[in-house]
Each structure stands twice: as structure tokens, then as C-alpha cells.
């Protein structure tokens, strides 16, 4: 049963996100109700799972996905994951309520709520993943959702820049984490979280442990905005405030510390862990606390204080002590409550007064007493005032710094640094509250401040209530849950601890008192009358500037490399391609040798040699003539194609020969139709070739010749080796008994590999539609618009085919009358022949492809002889219908089998005797081949006719209205 609930938790937010995306853009209430219900429902399901989690330890759901690769969809909830999941979903519910009133009616809310819910789903995915790779995927998804939400107001440059920076930093960290996770899985032999957690000793003893640690740390520290990657978080404050409260203080930035805690049992305990994780945490704690004191923006203060508090958690995790881990988990929950409520207060102030500038705000407590009270309590919790939750975890932190198990100087330095950070924390909390809510009332605010609607205050009030409750009676409110969480992380090693408010007169208490008094004093002395907006000492060090310089460097480096290594010119790219292929092949041939095989060759037939003397000459002639004599080149290419087709006949491939022959015809017609739109090119008017074009051509001849020789050698080397009995025997033997056909090639196409063919005809249909669509918007070059010279001269001589003008005549008059009679006679005959090829295809050379091409050729012949107008006044072909009918027929043949319980496209045959007609063999394969046939007819005719129609467009008075829709 629990598995069902896990799936629900996992599924609900994403489903909600999808629904939210499709609501109208002004449906603010509907969106809020939808998102609120989804978030609340998820929260309730999670809360209901607690008894099971605390009793059983771990609740699991495994869905095998690609078991051969060790990839499963695995959901796993233990006490720690439960606490985090509840934090994510519960905070999500409150933020949705808050956002309903925060977002302005002009904001497009579907996008907002859709991404918010998607983020919630992704974050729950991170928390609940029992498989490491799956977790990394969700991790990246949270980065993407964060990107979309920071850039929500994408008309603002700072939002776009902040979003880009956040995505670059956290996305790069995610990649590093992916690397670390792959190494972890490799060492542990499995990506399953339980298996990895069990391989602790193995991982720490492994020579790759430092690499694993570095990569995982990169991922976690970037995500949690820890020094030296902290700079992205203040810029992410361009997001709407609900997003800042939710993603950038309560949940997403906690993913980093979540991961560190999750992997704590297997990675922690070493010196490297202490220095990397603890060091980054300490730097963030002190540095960000210092910077927070000087921010002018309310959200800026909160952003830096978030970094500082995350630094505190990271430092606790880096201390290699079980009790410190407990304190870290406790502080994760506490920080989320007071910081989210402070963000909400900042958002309310911004919403009601129109500014967040500490220099302008003042004395708001008169106009907004409730907001002021809530913010003051939350800020007090942040500062660590007794009887509030922040005090408890901070006290535990102070205690841990004293009992650190390290050499002496570190045991003295750390408590001092911790107290200093406490002083900063008190000072910035005090400054935030005092400057905004106390002092003389501000005069020049954009709006007159007033208390917001109660619903906007409610989420903040609930969070503040939680702060107070946890602060006063911690053991009753959170004791159990915390213990379940830490037991899940530490198992049997979980230490005993007490969550009492009063521990007697201890050193930590002394440190707290020093921090409170010192912070108040610092604020009173240094900040109460300070007007400067700069940061002393650290003004020069700005992470953003370093980041920007780095990005500029990378971009210009990439541009330089592109300039050096590649070219914008296609010819140069092709040259590089062939040169590299040639070089690689030559290297292999020289090092390994290629050598001829020993298979006895067929005796040489002089006729075959003659055929290819002609074919080869044709190919060379194409290369020679393609620039100035296009018509000749097309004819020569036809010659080479004919030689290819005859080769297929010669070498036992009648189906290929037929297909090649018919394709040759349509291709030639197609290119001939296109020639008219190409620019005139004449040897006589071309400029004189200098030496450099000649040299270039010589170089190309050499490369092409070498490639040709290489391919010939390769082909010969294969041909003289004995054949390999791969799939051929199976197909030959199974063709009749299983496929019911004698023509093995056709049976493979329509039966054994029918699905491939289905895909292929789909591609053919898509290409035909693309050609059609491209030509509807076709704009020829102006110089191609008038009638071609030849037609003009013919018209002047009086023998233009009048058929093009008079569509109503029975036959085209003039020169084309006789061919037209023949072509009309040919059409029914060609139809018969094409049907004949289609029907016999299963047992003799032929089939749907050949039949379709024959019919298409006959149709296009009508167009060529009679002219477009004449043909379309009598014969209405709807190629689009043919394509659709063909695809449908092929699909029906496949689905019919599926309905009968067999796999898609399984053939069904019926063989029997009918009165009058005689013996009959019917097969679903025939329906499939009929589909191929119709699609080939439709696609070919559509492409050819679409190009042919372009010649009508240049003389609008002759166009046929309504033709070929």
C-alpha cells in the first residue's frame, strides 16, 4: 500500500504542473486552487506515511525499467527523506497561498504555477530517489525549474542574467555530481542507494575516493551556494518573492546539504572531508554574514544570510561528528521556517510600499503592525534569540565547535569564528527589522503602506508559530521526527541528545550571550547612522565579476577555436570531413594492412566490364559537366544509374534493379523540373579561371580520387573474403513457412521487418509533405520569373504548345497531339502493370515500392505530355489523400494483428477455394503492401506535381484555380 502512496507523491505534482500549464493565462484563482490542492494533497499523503516510515524504517517502490543496465525507477522514503519531503510539500502549500496574493493580475500565472509544481515534483524526486542516477536527473530538473522561475519576468535584464548565472553554476555542478555518482556506483558495484550506503569502507579505501569527494562536493556546494560558488544566489533574487522564499531559501538550495547529509555515512570521517566541506562552510558562514550586514536590498540581506546559514549547516556536516549531523538536520528545518517567513515579509513590504530599499524604508510598524511583529519574531529566530527555534540549533552548533575532535589551534579558532558569525547574524537581523519597521515613518514611498490581506499574512504567521512552538517545547513538537530522521542517516551509530531549552550555564550559552550583546553593540555603533552603501574591505572581491570574466573568456576561447579548427564555408567543412576520413582509413590500412582475401572470384564477363566502362565514363562526365551543362549532367547521371540497375540484374537482385530503374526515371524528371529555377551559367560568360581555382580543383581531384580508390580497395577486400552466414539462412528458410511468400526480399520488407518499412514510408510521406509545404512559400529569384528563353523563341516561331492555354480541348493540339494520344492509352496499361507488380510482389520480383513508382511515372508522363492545365482539367489526383490512405492501410494491417492478440504487424494469411474464382491466397501482408503502394504513389506524385506547378505561378493568367489543394 505504501508503494501506491509513494507513486502518488511522485506523480501528483507533475500531473498538476501539466494541468496548470493549460489553464487560461488570467485564471489566477483556478491556478491557485489547483496548485494549492495538489500541494496540500501531497503534504497530507506524506504526513500519513509517517507511522509506516517510523515503524519500518524504509518504504520502497521499485519499478524495473532497464534491468539489464541496472536502471530502475526506484522510490525510497526513510525518516530523513520523509522530513525533507514534508518540508518541500508543506512549504509548497504555504507558498502557493502566498503567491496567489503576491502575483499581480497582469502576470501570466499558468507559467508560474506550472513551473512551481514541476519544481516541487523534481525536488520530491531528488529527495525520494533510491537510485543515484535517477536522483541526479531530478537534481538537474530542479536547476532547470529554478532557471525558468528566476527568469519568470523575462522582460527584465537582471532576471535573465540572474537566471543564466544560476543555471550555469548549478548546472555545471550537476554535471560534476553526475561524474561523482558514476564513480560511486562503479566503486560500489551498484547505483542503488542502499547498496552504495552499505559499501562505506570500500569507498573510503578506494584510490578514487578523493575524486568522488571532489566531484560530489562541487555538485553540493554549487547547489547550496557555498563559497566560492555563492555569488549566484543574490542574483537569483530577481525572481518573484514566492520563488525566493521557496526555492532559494527553504528547499532547492537545501538540496546540496541534503545530498551531503545523505552521503555523510559513506563519505565523511576523513581529513579531506573536513577541509573541503568544513572549509567551504566556514568561509560561507563568516563571509556571507559579513556581506549581509551591508546589503541595501531587503532580499539581498536575506540572500546573503541564507548563504551564511547554509554555510553553518555545511560546516556542521563537515565536522565529522554524529552530533553535529543531528544539529545540521535540525537547523535545515529551522532555517527553512524562519527564512521563508522573512522572505514573505520582505515580499509583503515590497508589495505594499513598492520598494525593498533599506535606505528608503523606515517606520513601517505603525502602518503594518502585524507584518512588523511577524518579521521581528522570525528575525529574532534567525539571530538566535532564546525561546525561538534558531536559538536551539545555533546552541548545538556552538557546542559542537567546542568539542571538535581536532588539533588545538583549530579548537580555539573555530569557536571564535562561530561567535563572530553569530555577532554578524545578530547585527544584520537587527538592521533589517530596525531600519524597515522602526524609526520615523518614511515619506517618499511609491505606495502608501498598509496591512495586506489576511490570507497573505497567513502563511508567514503559520511559519512564525512553528518557530515559537519549536523554540519553546522542542521535544514535543519535533523531537520524534528529528530522531527518526537522524536514525535513518546514522542507523545504530545515532547518538543520544536532548532538545531541552535550558542546559544550565555552559560555554555555548556564553557564546550566545556574547553574540547577542556583540551584535547589538555592533549595530548601534556602526550601522545605526551609516549612510554609505559600499562594503568595506571586500568591495574589490566580487564573484559576479570573476564569473563574467570567466564566461567571456570561455566564449572568446570557443570562438577562437572555431575559427582555427573549422570554417563557415561548406566546401572547407566537406574537405575536412573527407580528409579526416581518408587519413584515418589510411592510418588503419598502413598499420593493420588490408590485403585481399582468398574467396574464388567470379569469372570476368567482358560485357560486364564494358557496362562499367560506360557507367564509369558517365560518372566522370557528370563530374565534368555539372557546372555548365546541367542537362547533360542529368543525362549522364541517368546513364550511371542505368549501369547500376543493370548490375543489380546481373548479380541476382531483380527487385533492386526494378526499383533503381523506376526511381531513376522519377529522379530525372524531378531534377529536370528544378533546372528551370537555377541561375544561368555559361562557360563563355564566366570569368577567366586563374591559377588558384585551378589549383583548388587539382587538390579536390586528388582527394576525391584517393577516396574513390580507397573505397574501391575496401570493397574489393571484402568481396574477396568468404561470406558470413549472418541472418540470410534464417530469412531464406523461414520465408515460405512463416512469411508465406517466395520472394525473400519482399517478405523481409513487408513481414519480418515490416515495422522498419512502416517507419520508412512514414518518412517518405513526411518528406513529401515538407516538399509541398516548402513550395507553397517558394519565392523564385526575380531573374527566373520570365518565361525561359527557349519557350519565348518557340512562341515567337509560332509553335508553342497551345495546350497550355486551352485546358478544355480534347487533346493537346500541335506537336504534342500524337504523344498525347499515346500517353493517354498508356495510362490504363501502366495502372495494370503497376497493380500486377504489386500483387505478384510476394512471390516474384515486384512489390509496393516498384508498383507505386510505375504508376507515379505514368501520371507524371501525362503532365509532361499534356501540360499541367490540360491534365488537371480532366484528371483529379489527390496525392494527399493517397498518402493518408496508404499510411492508414499499413497501420490497419499492423493494428489488425495487434487486435488479434499477436504483436504489431504480425501477418495473417488465409488460403482457400472460392466458387467461380478458384484457389485464392489472402494475407494481411497484401494490405500492408497496398499501403506502401498508395503512399509511394501519393508521395511521388505530390513532390513532382508540386514542383511542376511552380511554372504556372510565373504566368498567373494561366494558372488553374483550385488545382492541387
Amino acid at each position: 500500500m505504501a508503494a501506491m502512496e509513494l507513486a502518488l507523491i511522485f506523480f501528483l505534482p507533475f500531473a498538476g504542473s501539466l494541468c496548470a500549464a493549460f489553464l487560461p493565462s488570467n485564471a489566477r484563482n483556478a491556478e491557485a486552487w489547483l496548485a494549492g490542492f495538489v500541494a496540500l494533497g501531497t503534504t497530507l499523503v506524506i504526513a500519513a506515511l509517517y507511522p509506516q516510515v517510523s515503524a519500518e524504517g524504509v518504504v520502497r517502490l521499485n519499478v524495473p525499467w532497464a534491468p539489464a543496465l541496472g536502471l530502475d525507477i526506484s522510490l525510497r522514503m526513510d525518516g530523513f527523506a520523509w522530513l525533507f519531503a514534508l518540508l518541500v510539500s508543506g512549504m509548497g502549500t504555504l507558498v502557493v497561498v502566498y503567491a496567489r496574493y503576491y502575483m499581480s493580475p497582469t502576470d501570466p500565472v499558468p507559467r508560474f504555477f506550472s513551473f512551481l509544481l514541476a519544481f516541487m515534483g523534481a525536488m520530491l524526486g531528488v529527495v525520494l530517489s533510491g537510485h543515484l542516477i535517477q536522483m541526479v536527473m531530478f537534481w538537474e530538473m530542479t536547476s532547470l525549474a529554478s532557471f525558468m522561475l528566476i527568469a519568470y519576468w523575462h522582460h527584465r535584464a537582471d532576471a535573465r542574467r540572474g537566471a543564466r548565472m544560476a543555471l550555469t553554476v548549478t548546472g555545471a555542478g550537476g554535471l560534476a555530481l553526475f561524474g561523482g555518482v558514476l564513480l560511486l556506483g562503479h566503486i560500489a558495484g551498484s547505483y542503488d542507494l542502499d547498496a552504495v550506503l552499505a559499501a562505506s569502507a570500500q569507498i573510503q579505501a578506494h584510490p578514487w575516493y578523493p575524486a568522488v569527494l571532489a566531484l560530489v562536493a562541487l555538485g553540493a556546494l554549487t547547489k547550496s551556494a557555498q563559497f566560492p560558488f555563492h555569488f549566484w544566489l543574490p542574483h537569483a533574487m530577481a525572481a518573484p518573492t514566492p520563488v525566493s522564499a521557496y526555492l532559494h531559501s527553504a528547499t532547492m538550495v537545501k538540496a546540496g546539504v541534503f545530498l551531503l547529509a545523505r552521503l555523510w555515512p559513506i563519505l565523511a570521517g576523513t581529513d579531506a572531508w573536513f577541509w573541503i566541506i568544513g572549509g567551504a562552510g566556514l568561509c560561507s558562514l563568516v563571509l556571507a554574514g559579513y556581506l549581509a550586514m551591508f546589503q541595501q536590498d531587503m532580499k539581498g540581506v536575506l540572500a546573503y544570510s541564507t548563504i551564511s546559514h547554509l554555510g553553518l549547516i555545511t560546516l556542521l556536516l563537515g565536522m565529522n561528528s554524529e552530533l553535529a549531523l543531528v544539529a545540521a538536520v535540525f537547523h535545515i528545518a529551522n532555517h527553512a521556517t524562519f527564512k521563508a517567513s522573512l522572505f514573505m515579509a520582505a515580499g509583503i513590504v515590497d508589495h505594499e510600499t513598492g520598494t525593498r530599499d533599506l535606505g528608503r524604508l523606515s517606520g513601517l510598524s505603525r502602518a503594518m503592525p502585524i507584518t512588523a511583529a511577524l518579521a521581528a519574531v522570525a528575525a529574532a529566530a534567525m539571530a538566535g534569540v532564546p525561546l525561538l527555534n534558531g536559538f536551539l540549533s545555533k546552541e548545538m552548533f556552538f557546542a559542537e565547535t567546542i568539542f571538535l575532535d581536532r588539533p588545538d589551534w583549530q579548537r580555539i579558532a573555530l569557536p571564535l569564528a562561530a561567535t563572530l558569525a553569530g555577532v554578524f547574524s545578530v547585527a544584520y537581523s537587527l538592521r533589517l527589522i530596525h531600519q524597515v519597521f522602526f524609526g520615523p515613518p518614511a515619506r517618499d514611498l511609491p505606495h502608501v503602506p498598509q496591512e495586506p490581506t489576511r490570507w497573505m499574512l497567513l502563511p508567514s504567521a503559520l511559519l512564525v508559530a512553528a518557530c515559537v512552538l519549536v523554540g519553546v517545547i522542542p521535544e514535543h513538537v519535533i523531537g520524534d521526527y528529528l530522531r527518526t530522521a537522524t536514525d535513518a542517516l546514522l542507523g545504530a551509530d545515532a547518538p543520544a541528545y536532548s532538545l531541552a531549552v535550558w542546559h544550565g550555564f555552559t560555554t555555548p550559552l556564553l557564546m550566545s550571550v556574547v553574540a547577542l550583546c556583540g551584535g547589538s553593540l555592533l549595530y548601534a555603533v556602526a550601522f545605526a547612522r551609516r549612510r554609505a552603501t559600499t562594503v568595506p574591505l571586500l568591495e574589490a572581491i566580487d564573484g559576479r565579476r570573476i564569473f563574467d570574466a570567466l564566461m567571456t573568456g570561455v566564449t572568446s576561447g570557443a570562438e577562437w577555436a572555431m575559427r582555427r579548427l573549422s570554417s563557415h564555408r561548406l566546401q572547407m567543412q566537406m574537405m575536412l570531413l573527407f580528409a579526416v576520413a581518408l587519413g584515418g582509413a589510411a592510418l588503419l590500412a598502413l598499420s593493420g594492412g588490408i590485403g585481399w582475401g582468398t574467396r574464388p572470384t567470379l569469372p570476368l564477363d567482358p560485357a560486364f566490364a564494358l557496362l562499367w566502362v560506360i557507367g564509369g565514363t558517365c560518372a566522370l562526365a557528370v563530374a565534368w559537366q555539372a557546372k555548365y551543362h546541367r542537362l547533360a549532367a542529368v543525362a549522364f547521371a541517368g546513364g550511371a544509374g542505368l549501369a547500376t540497375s543493370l548490375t543489380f540484374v546481373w548479380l541476382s537482385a531483380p527487385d533492386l534493379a526494378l526499383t533503381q530503374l523506376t526511381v531513376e526515371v522519377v529522379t530525372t524528371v524531378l531534377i529536370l523540373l528544378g533546372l528551370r529555377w537555377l541561375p544561368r551559367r555559361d562557360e563563355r560568360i564566366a570569368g577567366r579561371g586563374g591559377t588558384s581555382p585551378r589549383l583548388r580543383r587539382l587538390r579536390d581531384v586528388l582527394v576525391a580520387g584517393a577516396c574513390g580508390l580507397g573505397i574501391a580497395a575496401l570493397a574489393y577486400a571484402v568481396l574477396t573474403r568468404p561470406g558470413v552466414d549472418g541472418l540470410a539462412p534464417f530469412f531464406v528458410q523461414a520465408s515460405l513457412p512463416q512469411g508465406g511468400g517466395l520472394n525473400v526480399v519482399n517478405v523481409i520488407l513487408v513481414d519480418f521487418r515490416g515495422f522498419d518499412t512502416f517507419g520508412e514510408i512514414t518518412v517518405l510521406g513526411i518528406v513529401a509533405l515538407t516538399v509541398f509545404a516548402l513550395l507553397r512559400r517558394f519565392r523564385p529569384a526575380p531573374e527566373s520569373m520570365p518565361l525561359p528563353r527557349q519557350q519565348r523563341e518557340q512562341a515567337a516561331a509560332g509553335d508553342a504548345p497551345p495546350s497550355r492555354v486551352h485546358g478544355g480541348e480534347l487533346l493537346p493540339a500541335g506537336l504534342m497531339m500524337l504523344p498525347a494520344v499515346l500517353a493517354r492509352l498508356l495510362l490504363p496499361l501502366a495502372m495494370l502493370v503497376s497493380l500486377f507488380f504489386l500483387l505478384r510482389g510476394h512471390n516474384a520480383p515486384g512489390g509496393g515500392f516498384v508498383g507505386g513508382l510505375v504508376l507515379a511515372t505514368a501520371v507524371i508522363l501525362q503532365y509532361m505530355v499534356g501540360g499541367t492545365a490540360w491534365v488537371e482539367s480532366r484528371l483529379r489526383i489527390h496525392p494527399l489523400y493517397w498518402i493518408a490512405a496508404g499510411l492508414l492501410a499499413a497501420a490497419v494491417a499492423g493494428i489488425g494483428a495487434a487486435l488479434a492478440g499477436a504483436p504489431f504487424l504480425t501477418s495473417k494469411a488465409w488460403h482457400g477455394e472460392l466458387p467461380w474464382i478458384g484457389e485464392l491466397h489472402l494475407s494481411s501482408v497484401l494490405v500492408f503492401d497496398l499501403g506502401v503502394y498508395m503512399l509511394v504513389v501519393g508521395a511521388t506524385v505530390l513532390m513532382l506535381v508540386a514542383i511542376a506547378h511552380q511554372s504556372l505561378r510565373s504566368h498567373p493568367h494561366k494558372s488553374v484555380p483550385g488545382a492541387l489543394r
Partner: protein
Amino acid sequence: MEIVFALAIGVLAGSGIYLLLRPRTFQFIMGLSLLSYAVNLFIFGMGRLRTGAAPVIDPARGADPALYADPVPQALVLTAIVIGFAVTALFLVVLLAARGLAGTDHVDGREPERE
């Protein structure tokens, strides 16, 4: 036979590659055409050359694989021929549209600077 067949592939491929290196789109399309002949013949040749052994089963002779040519490369090449036609058609239309838009038939969409 094999040597002629191999040389035929070589000549087709060489001419095709030379044309692919040329600057005009029409030359390029002809080059693709020639190269696809060569590639189709090459794939077809992977089944080794046989004469008089079309893979159409003669019920009188039975279904002994040794009697018939390899049908698998033939099936592959058959679809390749048809798809090759579709690609040629698509490329032709793109070529015409590009010429209409850019006013040139150079493969880069603009005339190179004269040096």
C-alpha cells in the same frame, strides 16, 4: 567480376566526392546522387556477388540458403534507394528555395569574396 565491381564503386564514389567539394548547389546534388549509387552498390556487395541466384525461392529446389543470394543487403538497399529519392527531392526543393531567398546558388548562400 569483383575487380570491375569494386572499381565501379570507386569511380562513382570519387566522382561524387569531387562534386561534393564543388561550390554550386547543383553540383552538390549530382554528387550526392553519384555517391548514393556507390554506397548502395557497396552495401549490396556485402552479401558477396552471385549470378543466377536471385533470392526468389524455387519450390522445386527447396529453401537451401546456399542456393540463393543473400537477401538482407538487398532489402536494406531497396529501402535506401527509395529514401535516397526522397532526400534528393527534399534537397532539390531546399536548393531552389535557398536560391530564391539568397539570390545565389552557392552552397554557402552567398558568393565568396573575389580575391
